[in-house]
């Protein structure tokens, strides 16, 4: 099979960048809160950077001590970002895993029973779910659940109900290919039962797909979380507060103070203050974009290798993965 990408090594440029960025994201999630310079919830309504200078929030980026600026309550953006990556990533991981499990099960059913009624129904279900616009459906479901103490479960359900179709498509395609392989037929001829074939021969083929699927799902989930967060649907906490105006004529205004930092929530609140403080939105958006890009890049480059058949099978283990030689076609595993 012709190799259409530039390098012959197992790691190409895209994969390197993806791995680096993903590693950076995970490191931030793990140790971010420990290296944050300020308390993310601490509000600084007035600071005094110079002897005779007073500043009121929002502070622009570059203020000494608040290197990325702050929001309108004076909370340091850098610290909030460092704290916020962890809950967002955890939530995304949770949702991505749910989608992955659903997608693998339904995709395997569709691929394995491709000619029978069950497979047809699975395929129809997948096409039906794939034709519902994802964001709109998620918004509606979130709207329903938010009013009933919604939290992470609301997001998990809203994003998983129709989100598994991408994974299911890839898995179904792969299972359908595997089904035709001669070693399956040989195993059947030797008397192996269906279950044994599934476990010993089909599932290892899906194992090699798992990193690809997980990366791509994480990327997609983070993308949708970003868009939902922007629209105001996020899983963080809100506190009810009252902005007291000094005059007796106007009412006290109930406002929401964003609570514990979470990336989607930071986005939502930064958009409402966009014209006073555009930097917050841009910076939060950039951070979100980098995380999404990291996972997508990793997933895409992995997918490119897997689809071309250059990826070693599950049996070969780590030794082959770090080898820098391209596998020759005869090295493909086909054992019974």
């Amino acid at each position, binding site marked *: 099979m012709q190799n*259409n990408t530039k*390098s012959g090594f197992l790691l190409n440029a895209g994969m390197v960048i993806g791995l680096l960025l993903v590693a950076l994201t995970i490191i931030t999630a793990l140790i971010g809160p420990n290296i944050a310079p300020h308390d993310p919830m601490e509000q600084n309504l007035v600071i005094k950077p110079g002897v005779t200078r007073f500043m009121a929030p929002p502070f622009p980026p570059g203020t000494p001590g608040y290197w990325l600026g702050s929001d309108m309550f004076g909370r340091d953006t850098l610290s909030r970002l460092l704290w916020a990556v962890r809950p967002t990533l955890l939530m995304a991981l949770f949702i991505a895993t749910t989608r992955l499990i659903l997608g693998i099960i339904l995709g395997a059913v569709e691929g394995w029973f491709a000619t029978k009624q069950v497979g047809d129904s699975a395929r129809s279900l997948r096409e039906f779910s794939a*034709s519902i616009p994802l964001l*709109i459906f998620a*918004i509606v479901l979130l*709207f329903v659940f938010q009013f009933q103490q919604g939290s992470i479960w609301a997001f998990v359900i809203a994003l998983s109900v129709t989100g598994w179709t991408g994974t299911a498509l890839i898995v179904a395609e792969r299972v359908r290919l595997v089904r035709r392989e001669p070693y399956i037929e040989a195993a059947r001829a030797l008397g192996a039962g269906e279950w044994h074939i599934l476990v010993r021969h089909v599932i290892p083929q899906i194992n090699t797909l798992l990193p690809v699927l997980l990366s791509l799902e994480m990327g997609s989930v983070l993308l949708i979380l*970003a868009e939902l967060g922007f629209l105001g649907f996020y899983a963080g906490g809100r506190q009810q507060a009252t902005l007291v105006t000094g005059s007796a004529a106007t009412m006290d205004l109930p406002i929401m103070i964003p609570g514990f930092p979470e990336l989607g929530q930071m986005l939502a609140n930064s*958009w409402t203050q966009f014209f006073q403080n555009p930097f917050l939105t841009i910076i939060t*958006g950039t951070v979100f974009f980098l995380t999404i*890009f990291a996972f997508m890049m990793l997933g895409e480059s992995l997918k490119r290798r897997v689809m071309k058949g250059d990826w070693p099978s599950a049996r070969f283990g780590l030794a082959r993965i770090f080898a820098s030689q391209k596998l020759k076609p005869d090295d493909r595993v086909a054992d019974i």
Partner: protein
Amino acid sequence: MTQFMLKRIVTVAVVLLAVNAMIYGLARYLDEWVFPHNTKEGALMIATFFDADMPAQPPQIMTMARDYVGYLGGVLRGDLGNRNNTPIIITITDKLPKSLVLLGLSLLVASLLGILGGALSVSTKTHQTTALAAMLTTGGYSIPAFYFTIALIALLMMFGPQMGRSRTLLPLNGYGLDEHLILPTLALALRPAAEIARLTSEMLAEEMGKRYVLTARAKGLPWRLVILRHIFPNLAPAIVAMIGNSMRYQISSLVIIEWVFLWPGLGKTVIDTVSMTRGFVINSWHPLTMVAVISTLTLVALLASLLAQVVTWVVDPRLREQHAPAAG
């Protein structure tokens, strides 16, 4: 051919009905058992996010089913319900063309940009896609819909009001079939352009190694003509099919872009109806509007997908031959 179309149309109708029923059920559930009715105390309660004693009645499926059948009958007559004494159908027919303009134009722009970009990113000497191109297209694909728009808006604001001018170079929001169209179309076209560019570059790289290309080049055709006349008709079905499959994400992006640019289309109506950004919700909640708008958007996605399939069928003669074997 007609059997093909019939099967597809029936699928569209069934899916639409299912989605409509689902959303109708959700909307009624919200309206009757989650929100107290539109009383002043109710509105105030919701505005302060109290999860007060909700009436603990179980959902009454039969009543809802009967109401739904009545609603369907109304739809067939063209009556989608009223909202504040305005028939909802007028809202839909007013806003649908605006959304469609944005969608159609953005897909057109995306196709042009994507094909051009994809073609440019393949090197004719090595028949490979460059790694840079792969990164750019993945980057374009992973930009959230609003991020690009915010970057554009910030850029324009830098060259506008902050430099002392009274307004920005391009209008930032509002509806108009003139320069108001530029920014939303660009923002909406980004992701499909990235997808199309990636598909084009991959398929181009693959096709370039084939014999017919070698023959054409040996005949002395310049690369430009080879791509245009010989390779491109092989790519067209795949590209159109991909556009059809991406409609789902396109509609989602449409919703956000319409909201950011305050473009009065169907997407913005959805957000207006379920908006939660300000913490107060209720004045704009209206269940029948939500049902109608979401069903219409789903219908648009389905029809666009169907159109893509039809165009693929028309463009690719091989598909036609499969289903109608030539006589003799």
